[in-house]
């Protein structure tokens, strides 16, 4: 790689300097991992693997288990994807393919502006606007008429797994949207015209183009959104209800890994503190596993897509 420096001292210095920066990033990650591991050792020794499968969280009796938090983090994040992906991809297609020019800029600008709002603002508007609306217009009627479906079981309070998922979905839309737009824009105009010239409708054109060309890219965008959803802290803790319980119903309260750390860290000590740090370590691992799995799926999709064309 760096074999073309030709002995120029400036080039050499630049090469070494940039290598140092790259190494610093690596060292930082390793250090972060090491510190988390060291600080969580007391909890690891005490609870071992049972920490991951245990559902109790009792600071008074010093019994700690992470399962409800892992569950809450995963469920709220995937719920967010379920809502955000169709919305973002649909918006991206509309902006790129159908929207009249005067509408294009304001829609994309406003959607991207969503990314600039601080998460605590999302949380507050969640408490005061989103939760009451969800509760009165969506959750209450659904519980009344479809309460026998475990997913919609009452009682309805407002703060819930559903509220967290919906709020998260709004927060990750700008990320998925802007990457999806980039991906759609990479489709060669000639290919689109080819489909249309063969007598395809616009819908068929989009279906073929996305199916052939953009699936991997949109999946990548989804992973980006998922990464953001998994780690989101402030907004989630304000609407999820903060109850370490695993419930079938989306209307019941839950808890997420990032939320419990943010909530209890300041006043925790001893085993409690160590358990919170262990949750932090697990959150890092969960994020890592999800991302690696996504990368692997992505590479397979890319391989399949390139075979298909």
């Amino acid at each position, binding site marked *: 790689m760096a074999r073309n420096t030709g002995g120029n001292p400036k080039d050499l210095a630049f090469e070494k300097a940039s290598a140092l920066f790259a190494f610093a990033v690596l060292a930082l990650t390793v250090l972060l991992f090491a510190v988390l591991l060291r600080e969580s050792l007391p909890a690891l020794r005490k609870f071992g693997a049972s920490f991951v499968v245990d559902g*109790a*969280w*009792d*600071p*008074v*009796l010093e019994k700690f288990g992470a399962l409800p938090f892992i569950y809450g983090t995963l469920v709220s994040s995937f719920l967010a994807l379920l809502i955000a992906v169709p919305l973002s991809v649909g918006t991206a297609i509309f902006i790129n393919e159908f929207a009249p020019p005067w509408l294009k800029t304001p829609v994309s600008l406003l959607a991207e502006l969503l990314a600039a709002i601080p998460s605590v603002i999302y949380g507050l508007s969640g*408490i*005061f606007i989103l*939760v*009451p609306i969800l509760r009165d217009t969506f959750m209450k009627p659904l519980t009344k008429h479809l309460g026998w479906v475990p997913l919609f079981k009452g*009682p309805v*309070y*407002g*703060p819930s797994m559903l509220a967290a998922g919906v709020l998260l979905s709004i927060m990750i839309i700008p990320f998925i949207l802007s990457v999806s737009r980039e991906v759609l824009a990479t489709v060669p105009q000639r290919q689109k015209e080819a489909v249309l010239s063969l007598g395809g409708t616009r819908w068929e054109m989009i279906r073929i183009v996305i199916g052939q060309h953009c699936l991997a890219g949109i999946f990548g965008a989804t992973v980006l959104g998922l990464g953001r959803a998994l780690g989101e802290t402030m907004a989630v*803790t*304000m609407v999820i*209800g*903060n*109850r370490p319980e695993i419930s079938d119903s989306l209307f019941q*309260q839950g*808890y997420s890994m990032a*939320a419990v750390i*943010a*909530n*209890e*860290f*300041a*006043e*925790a*000590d001893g085993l*409690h503190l160590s358990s919170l740090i262990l949750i932090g370590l697990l959150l890092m691992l969960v994020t890592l596993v999800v991302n690696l799995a996504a990368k692997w799926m992505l590479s397979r999709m890319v391989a399949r897509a390139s075979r298909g064309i």
Partner: protein
Amino acid sequence: MKTFHGVLAGILATVAVVSFASAADPLSINGAGATFPYPLYSKWFYEYSNSNPGVRFNYQSIGSGGGIRQITAGTVDFGASDAPMKEEEMARLPGPIFHIPAAMGAVTVVYNLEGQGSGLRLTPDVLAAIFLGKITRWNDPKIAGLNKSLAMPNADIVVAHRSDGSGTTDIFTNYLTAVNTEWRAKVGHGKAVNWPVGIGGKGNEGVAGVVKQTPGAVGYVELAYAKQNRMSVASLRNREGNFVAPTLEATSAAAAGAAKSMPADYRVSIVDAPGRDSYPIAGLTWLLVYKNQRDEAKGRALVRFLKWAIHDGQKMEAALDYAPLPKPVVEKLDKTLREINYKGKTLY
């Protein structure tokens, strides 16, 4: 090379000026800890520094646990906590420490019942049963029986509690533990507990948010917070059988009741205090100061400030919704402050 020397000389000159200037700078005293008394402390620091320009305070409201960790490590000159230090925490300290009570606060039970203001009456057992999830509806005969003049709605009770570790939770659960055996056996007390029911809100504002937004909700917040946000507060039956509304006077009455049995180290919970007018869910907040100071000038400034705080500072408490310390406690504190020393020499 010439320019290099010029630059070097410039830097040295700047350093000399800066270090000379810092010698004339005010003495800065660092503290960290509880968030609950933070509005009071910042008022104190501001007023005290105005009349004593030689001293400046730097206080980080990082939470009681953080305050205890920092004073234990010796990274701050004083700590602050809403809960007294535990025995095992005291054992880790490098030397003896004093708990100096600074102020008192009350925790109020707030609720959201349509068309009803303050004044809902609750007994300790009913309150515990609500937070244990055993009374789940507002028109339960146990609640309706206490509030015959009010029409209790046929609605679910939604319990709201703090999700973050906090001194407020510590005082509230301390109270329930003191008055209810079932609560003591099932939940216990602490800055964070395993709540049998309810929704967790982050901070006073989080609990208040849930209560305000949810019809039929009940929760607990600090008195100052409930007052400033005009929330409906419940009257609680105290030890003598009177229903008492949470006010500053009722909190002071609780402190006066508890003052009679104040232990020498001031590490006491004043929940369920005796006295006809005592509001039962009250608590002290403490400043943590080492008995043996390591720095004479800083120690002297700190003791002078503490002396000011327990006398003149108390006059500022009511305006900020904290209850001032009762007189007998202040007199006792004067003796304690005299014991703070630098190499055996009192700093009072």
